[in-house]
């Protein structure tokens, strides 16, 4: 397109990328170098670069839009070497979000958002339209915010504007350098959730830098773990980083609680749900139900005509022949959404009277039961099958020898 808007996502490949700063720059405290870094990000995925400070993650990011030039190696965007393109033109096609937001204090929010469209020469009316569209997209009412200056916004609002500005010309690639680093944890969590929802629609290829492993696991489709000196420590999906850390360094970096961290990666929908023993409130209890409850989970679930949960009845109150409506019952809780993470589900289960979550669909119909045992089983299943019986346990112990 003549205006530079492409609207699609692009692949990003690092091929043996190395960056050496010379002595003079090292003395000035420049970020650490990058050594022989190779990885490939498919179009439309979020790849998080994570590692301790000075590991070269920001340097790696800035080599993509050539704010820093690699000493050797190539970075391919959609198969084309970035080094061969005009830097200015290249940058206009790559969204860029930084931690301190980099908003221009002297420009109104609308002008800030329309920065790249202005550079690309879009007419004023179209710029305004696009800015308003983007502000609405990131949850800021254009009527309220378009005319304000950055100083009049809260930290979280400024971060949203930063994201909107990076999206302005619909670039196929976005670079985000600790984009949610400067806000408090509650706002950060909300911005992360919103951004993941946004990504479902925009499906950009995103390189995302953070020093926070939890953020990396949450945001990444893929995670690049960098060690000091800009050496690739591990590259893979978050689950793989957590279940089979490639080295002691990665294991230490993801932390001893990585078993718990994995809980945020899976959702209730991934569980094999337990089929509950159910009955309608008007029915009488049967011997068969009593036997079924003895064999499995000791609570009978009363459901209405539309299969929606009504109440729990404990096994000792299920007396064959007695009407179930008269049996002492417990409220039908907790209810779980299929999209809830296992971390949230487990937390709810541990606090509930009945240790099973009733998983319901949108119309509150019962789909099955989620139990602590079920969650544990899923974690065991997704752990690497490497022959050792306690793969998970072994992985938790940093002193244990890994499988050959």
């Amino acid at each position, binding site marked *: 397109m003549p205006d530079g808007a492409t609207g699609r996502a692009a692949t990003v490949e690092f091929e043996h990328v190395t960056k050496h700063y010379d002595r003079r720059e090292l003395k000035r405290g420049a970020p650490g170098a990058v050594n022989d870094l190779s990885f490939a990000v498919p179009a439309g995925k979020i790849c998080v670069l994570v590692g301790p400070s000075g590991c070269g993650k920001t340097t790696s990011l*800035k080599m993509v*839009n050539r*704010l820093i030039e690699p000493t050797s190696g190539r970075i391919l965007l959609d198969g084309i070497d970035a080094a061969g393109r005009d830097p*200015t*033109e*290249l*940058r*206009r096609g790559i969204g*860029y979000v*930084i*931690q*301190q*937001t*980099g*908003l*221009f*204090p*002297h*420009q109104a929010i609308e002008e800030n958002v329309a*920065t*790249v469209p202005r*550079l690309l020469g879009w007419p004023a009316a179209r710029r305004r339209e696009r800015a308003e569209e983007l502000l609405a997209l990131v949850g800021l009412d254009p009527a309220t915010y378009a005319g*304000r*200056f950055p*100083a*009049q*916004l*809260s930290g979280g609002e400024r971060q949203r504007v930063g994201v909107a*500005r990076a999206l302005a010309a619909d670039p196929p690639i976005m*670079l985000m350098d600790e984009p949610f680093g400067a806000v408090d944890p509650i706002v950060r969590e909300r911005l992360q959730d919103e951004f993941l929802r946004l990504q479902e629609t925009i499906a950009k290829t995103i390189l995302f830098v953070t020093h926070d492993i939890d953020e990396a696991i949450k945001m990444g489709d893929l995670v690049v773990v960098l060690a000091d000196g800009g050496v690739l420590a591990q590259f893979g999906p978050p689950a793989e980083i957590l279940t089979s850390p490639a080295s002691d360094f990665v294991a230490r970096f993801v932390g001893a609680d990585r078993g718990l961290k994995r809980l945020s990666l899976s959702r209730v929908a991934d569980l094999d749900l337990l089929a509950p023993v159910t009955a309608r409130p008007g029915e009488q209890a049967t011997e068969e139900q009593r036997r079924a409850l003895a064999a499995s989970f000791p609570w009978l679930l009363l459901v209405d005509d539309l299969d929606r949960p009504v109440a729990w009845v404990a096994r000792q109150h299920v007396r064959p022949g007695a009407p179930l409506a008269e049996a002492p019952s417990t409220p039908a809780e907790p209810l779980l959404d299929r999209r809830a993470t296992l971390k949230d589900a487990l937390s709810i289960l541990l606090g509930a009277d009945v240790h099973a979550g009733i998983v319901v669909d949108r119309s509150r119909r019962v789909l099955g039961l989620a139990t602590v045992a079920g969650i544990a089983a899923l974690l065991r299943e997704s752990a690497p099958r490497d022959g050792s019986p306690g793969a998970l346990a072994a992985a938790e112990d940093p002193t244990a020898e890994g499988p050959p």
Partner: protein
Amino acid sequence: MTISWEWIADNLDEIGAATLEHLQLTLIAVGVGFAISLLLGLAAYRWRGLYGPIAGVAGLLYTIPSLALFAVLVPFTGLTVLTAEIGLVTYTLLILVRGVVSGLDGVPRDAVEAATGMGYTARQRLARVELPLAVPVIVTAIRLATVTTVGLVMVTALIGEGGLGQLMLRGFNRSFPTMIYVGVVMSVVLAVGLDLFLVGCQRFLTPWARARAT
């Protein structure tokens, strides 16, 4: 030591002309000084190594007593406006170059980095991000240079220029205090007026600087 209101009433034209001349000398000096300082300041901002020498020379020039400077210039350029302006411009350089450089240095780094990362060319970035954000500091320097220059213009009376300075000089020679008072009052009025005008310019140019969370 009384003021002759009569003289003032009879010589409004002369007072007006002297004030206007004073204003012209000031504006030309600050205008030319700013143009030179902007170029020098931009060069020093771009090539950091130049800042030391530029600031050093400007500082050295600033220490030369004004009378001595005019005395040195007269053999070359005569008793002319040019001589006066060369001197006046020279004294603005130190303040203005420093103002330009510290204004540009004060531009938030993240804004500059974001501008580069989004595809501004160096020139676009300077014109649309760095200079606009340096305006408050630069205007402050211009105010200082302007007020200083209003005072220095008085001295150029000694080489036949001087605007209100001429008025004062003649007052001294004739032992006629009214002319001295008028010269003093009008130069203060001029300095305060120009300063207020510049404050107004700054407020107009930088609505964002006053914008705070509402």
